[in-house]
């Protein structure tokens, strides 16, 4: 146990209604909650656990977003081929790139400009330039706030994924999903608050969504999108019927109650008694949440489920929406393999070292329709206002070529966009130089991004701390500034 740690979890658990009121949630969320409640999906009738570290907690101030869906484009898409249009780069194809550092990334680059091979168009009222890699997603340009001036310290995948997810380039520190679960608790009693979905595990693996030194209550449930079961050991033993398992659990409950009576000072025993009831309910609730057969064909088609290129990512996006509806707080989806035949690698699909055109074309086919469907679906259901959707890679890519057609890693410039959840749609924040090679205007660190995301969830990144080995740790370490310009 950790007696010195003030986790701030008081013994009193606010009721859901109280929470929603204090958290400033609108009537829409309440209506949804009651709808789901009537379906028995939120199971809020269950008595609150004593000292439950997952009990919903008050944020520091009124939040704009209730949930986050982070679409992580593993491998790192190129900013100059997706959302950061650079006419100058298009003009100077093959010419030397001034100030190019061939050792910027993992390999060595040519120092010569490589123009984007994709077709660019302006979209929406905001006139946002988007390449045709994301032509469907681009329909929602007016809902997105673009941060064009991002940079990282890491220039390779695993450290980059750690930095984006956990704030440092080394593994072992808690990821944002765990921090947020620690800070806000869980809305759902039968589903975890933090869910990760991946295909091949992204390079850097589980450390990317680690709970680090935070208690395991706050860890992610990581699901391989290719598997059938969202959770291990969710099915009761084959030889046992539901009433039989229930009877055994009743016996267990009785034994545990007797033990509890004999140990009046050990409050954690009660939580353990309850955990079996919760587990029993999860056996029903979890498969329901992950069961996409409950969606209409139309919805599933929109998400490109069944499409040979986009099926897995489409399933993951639709699952994310179902989870958010059921009170899951933080969903992180790591894009899996591209379509194939393009030299892309399963654990870093967007890593277009050899040929940016074939690689991004293929990865775009896997992601574009599902992302557009997710944004449209959330919007139609009135969920986008309270759901923050984030799109990022680990870093950007070089404006000069690697070989003749590829691009290397570029930690000095990349674009992240966010939509919904309290951001100002159609805004463009910060800028890269005329080649998209370096972030030059309003340079934005990962800590700044994190501070902003926490802010949208009602958390002050300087106050969300956890004492470990003598230090009050923060997701944002010792820096980070909220990007006010993109807030609605």
């Amino acid at each position, binding site marked *: 146990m950790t007696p010195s740690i003030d986790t701030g979890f008081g013994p009193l658990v606010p009721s859901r209604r109280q929470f929603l009121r204090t958290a400033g949630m609108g009537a829409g969320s309440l209506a949804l909650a009651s709808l789901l409640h009537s379906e028995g999906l939120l199971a809020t009738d269950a008595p609150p656990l004593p000292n439950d570290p997952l009990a919903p907690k008050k944020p520091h101030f009124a939040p704009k977003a209730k949930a986050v869906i982070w679409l992580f484009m593993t491998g790192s898409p190129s900013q100059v081929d997706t959302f950061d249009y650079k006419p100058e780069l298009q003009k100077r194809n093959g010419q030397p790139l001034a100030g190019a550092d061939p050792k910027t990334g993992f390999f060595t680059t040519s120092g010569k400009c490589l123009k984007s091979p994709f077709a660019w168009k302006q979209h929406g009222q905001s006139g946002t330039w988007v390449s045709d890699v994301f032509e469907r997603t681009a329909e929602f340009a007016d809902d997105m706030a673009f941060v064009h001036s991002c940079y990282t310290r890491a220039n390779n995948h695993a450290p980059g994924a750690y930095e984006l997810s956990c704030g440092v380039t080394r593994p072992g520190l808690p990821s944002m999903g765990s921090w947020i679960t620690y800070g806000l608790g869980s809305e759902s009693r039968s589903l975890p608050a933090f869910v990760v979905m991946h295909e091949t595990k992204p390079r850097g693996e589980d450390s990317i969504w680690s709970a680090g030194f935070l208690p395991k*209550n706050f860890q992610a449930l990581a699901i391989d999108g290719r598997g059938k079961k969202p959770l291990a050991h969710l099915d009761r033993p084959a030889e046992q019927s539901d009433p039989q398992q229930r009877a055994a659990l009743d016996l267990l409950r009785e034994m545990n109650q007797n*033990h509890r009576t004999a140990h009046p*000072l050990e409050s954690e025993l009660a939580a353990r008694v309850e955990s079996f009831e919760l587990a029993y309910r999860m056996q029903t609730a979890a498969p329901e949440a992950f069961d996409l057969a409950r969606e209409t064909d139309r919805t599933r088609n929109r998400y490109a489920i069944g499409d040979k290129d986009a099926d897995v990512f489409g399933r993951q996006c639709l699952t994310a929406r179902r989870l958010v509806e059921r009170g899951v707080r933080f969903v992180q989806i790591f894009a899996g393999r591209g379509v194939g035949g393009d030299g892309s690698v399963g654990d870093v699909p967007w890593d277009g070292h050899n040929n940016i055109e074939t690689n991004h074309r293929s990865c775009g086919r896997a992601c574009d329709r599902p992302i557009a469907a997710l944004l449209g679906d959330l919007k139609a259901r009135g969920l986008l206002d309270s759901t923050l959707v984030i799109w990022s890679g680990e870093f950007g890519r070089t404006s000069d070529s690697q070989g003749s057609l590829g691009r290397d890693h570029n930690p000095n410039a990349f674009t992240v966009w966010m939509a919904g959840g309290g951001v100002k749609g159609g805004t463009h924040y910060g800028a890269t130089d005329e080649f998209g090679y370096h972030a030059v205007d309003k340079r934005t660190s990962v800590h700044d991004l994190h501070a902003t995301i926490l802010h949208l969830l009602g958390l002050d990144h300087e106050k969300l701390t956890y004492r470990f080995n003598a230090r009050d740790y923060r997701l944002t370490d010792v820096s980070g500034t909220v990007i006010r310009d993109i807030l609605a």
Partner: protein
Amino acid sequence: MRLTSIALVVGLVWLAPRAGAADDPGIAFFETKVRPVLVKECYSCHSATEKKAKGGLELDSAAGLLKGGEGGPAVVAGKPDASPLIKAIRHADTQLKMPPTGKLPDAVVADLTKWVQSGAAMPKDTGVGVRPTTKIDIEAGRAFWSFRPLAAAVPPEVKTVGWARTPVDRFILAKLEAKKLRPNNPADREKLIRRAYFDLTGLPPTVAEIDVFVADNSPDAWAKLVEKLLASDRYGERWARHWLDVARFAESGGYEFDGDRKGAHHYRDFVIRALNSDMPYNEFVRLQLAGDKLLPNDYNAVAATGFLVAGPYPGQTTAKTLEPIRYDQLDDMISTTGSAFLGVTIGCARCHDHKYDPIPQDDYYRLLATLATTNSTTANLDPKPELYQQQKLKWDVIRATLDVEWQSFVRDRFPKAFATWWAENGEQVISRRVFADPRAIVARQLAALLAKSDGKVTDANRAELAELARGMEPESRKAFAPTLAHLAAAPKPKLDAVFAVGQRGGEVFYLIRGETGRKNGIPAPGFMKVLMSNPDKDARWTAPLADKKSTVDPRVALANWMTDADAGAGRLLARVIVNRLWQHHMGRGLVATPNDFGVQGDRPTHPELLDYLASELIRGGWRLKPIHKLIMTSAVYQQSGDDIAASRAADPDNKLWWRRPPMRLEAESVRDSLLAAGGALDLTMFGAGTLDEASSRRSVYLTVKRSRPVPILQLFDSPEAIQSIGERQVTTVPTQALTLMNSPFVRKQADLLAKRVRPVGGELPAAIATAYRTAFGRKPTSQEKDRAAAFVGRHAETYGKGEPATARAFADFCQALLCSNEFVYVD
């Protein structure tokens, strides 16, 4: 302050001559004549450590000197007259006179001029070892409780008669009495034996073992039990796991690809062996820091250094990240060393002075310098050299006998046999083509030898002849055959790959704000000043050896300082480890933050007791088992966890230890107990592990792969092996319940338990009682027995009829026992 820092800086220049400096006269000249002047006269204004170096000029690195300031390069090699630095110190130019406070002595100006004239040799981009200045008052820091010498703690007098059993109890009782509180009475025997077994071995007692102990009325029954368990091999397995948490032990690199580290499990085995053999703790520490230097060919000692290199390391590096990664690696080593051994957060002084503790940044980099050549490697060593030695000895004896036999053959029978054979075959063999028959070469050598003695075999040449002929002459061949076979069967040492510390080149630099791009010279290996009470400071541990020629290896010096209880860190080392023992026995340390004995950590609840235990440890030759026994034979350990209203009201957090609270089993014990309940536990010790959680071996032998934590262990809070972990969290999550309810592994153990305690057709009441005793270490009450029997009866009906239905229902009952709180909590 400025004066102090300059004095420090100058001191260092003499302490830390550059590696290779002595070989290059130009650099040697710089080191002795130039650098000290720059440091003393110029740095207060022209140093990279200054917020704004005057005139943009930084004289503390080669790059700085060559780059110069606003007026161009400071020195032009070979041209003193063209070098602004020289112009300035000559005071010839009225616009530029340096230092502004007054001209340097002529001899000094001459030295600097000579240096520029002869090429301005400087160590390559190393700058000058500038010890970062500090505002930390080390003397004041020494007054903090954990950095003080051990107090000569005398167990206090107590009023209560009969409760205290050991001196330990008097420290506890005195504080309770002062608050007019009372502690608990001893727990009952069934609870005590279960507590002792889990505590020392991580496994439950068997029904037979419980019976023996409960029936033993001798006054020393408890002490005997404790001794028996301390002597058990299971003790090392249980307590090694505590240490492996602290050592952030894993068998793969983490990061991308999470490469397996061949032979990394030998470190785990070292820890188990060391604990089981009660290796003195100071030795245990020394081997982990420098076993490869202290006993280079010793498997155990080299395996011990797995401690330093157990941290994560990237699987991919890029040109730009190689150096930061190296500093991260060193940071991991020194931070873990600080947390594990000393409970100090040295890592906090990487970029600036420690914000709370008296650890200047200078200490951090001097400690880092002790590891400058430390890297990981895979060594090939013989884990059982004695086995090889024995075999070799036996083999040598036989070899000697065979040799005698051969000699006598050569003397007695060879001359005739050879002469006969040679006469018949010699010419023919010689005439063969060498390609067709390599024997032709030997035959020609024989002929040449024989030619010297007129073709005769003599006393003088027969040994040599026999040596050559034994490959072809039939009788010699026959006589030599046993020797040949014996040679082929010569024993070889069985080398095993051991992941351990290896050597590498390179240096460590002072880094301004921890940034690798801002080097500031090379620190001399050194230690935490606040933990050095001896006036000769670092030299006490780093001084040249008696032969005056060789110096102590910096890592050996680190180990020397660490374990020096008189003048080094040894006292804190002792405090930290006895606190860890108390923590695992009692549920919380006397210092509740076992990895932080600094200002941010908790203060000890019983500082005198902590010092008493630390002193006892040192007095007893640093052996841990006597300290375990001292704690466990105390009344404070043996008391029950019962409620006492008055004590609870006054001390709700049990800081005065009026009860010994129940504890949840740690992950490994949960899994091991499940296996033990099923009777399936495989007690094979040591060697490579497996990732298969369904394996029957103890959990300490499961492979620790950073990207693939064993699910059941992770569920029950086994830590991530990234940083030193002093205390585990205890969480309750529904996925634990799901696993216990539904996983095939748990289901199987329940089935095994059911079959073990109730053979086919067995009586239910007896089976229920044995199941209770196996799972909980106690007999069921008659009410519990009745309810269980009623459940099984009722439940069996849902499964059908007869024995199969009863067996199924009884297995469900057994699984409920394994799921219950009583199974995973120990009173």
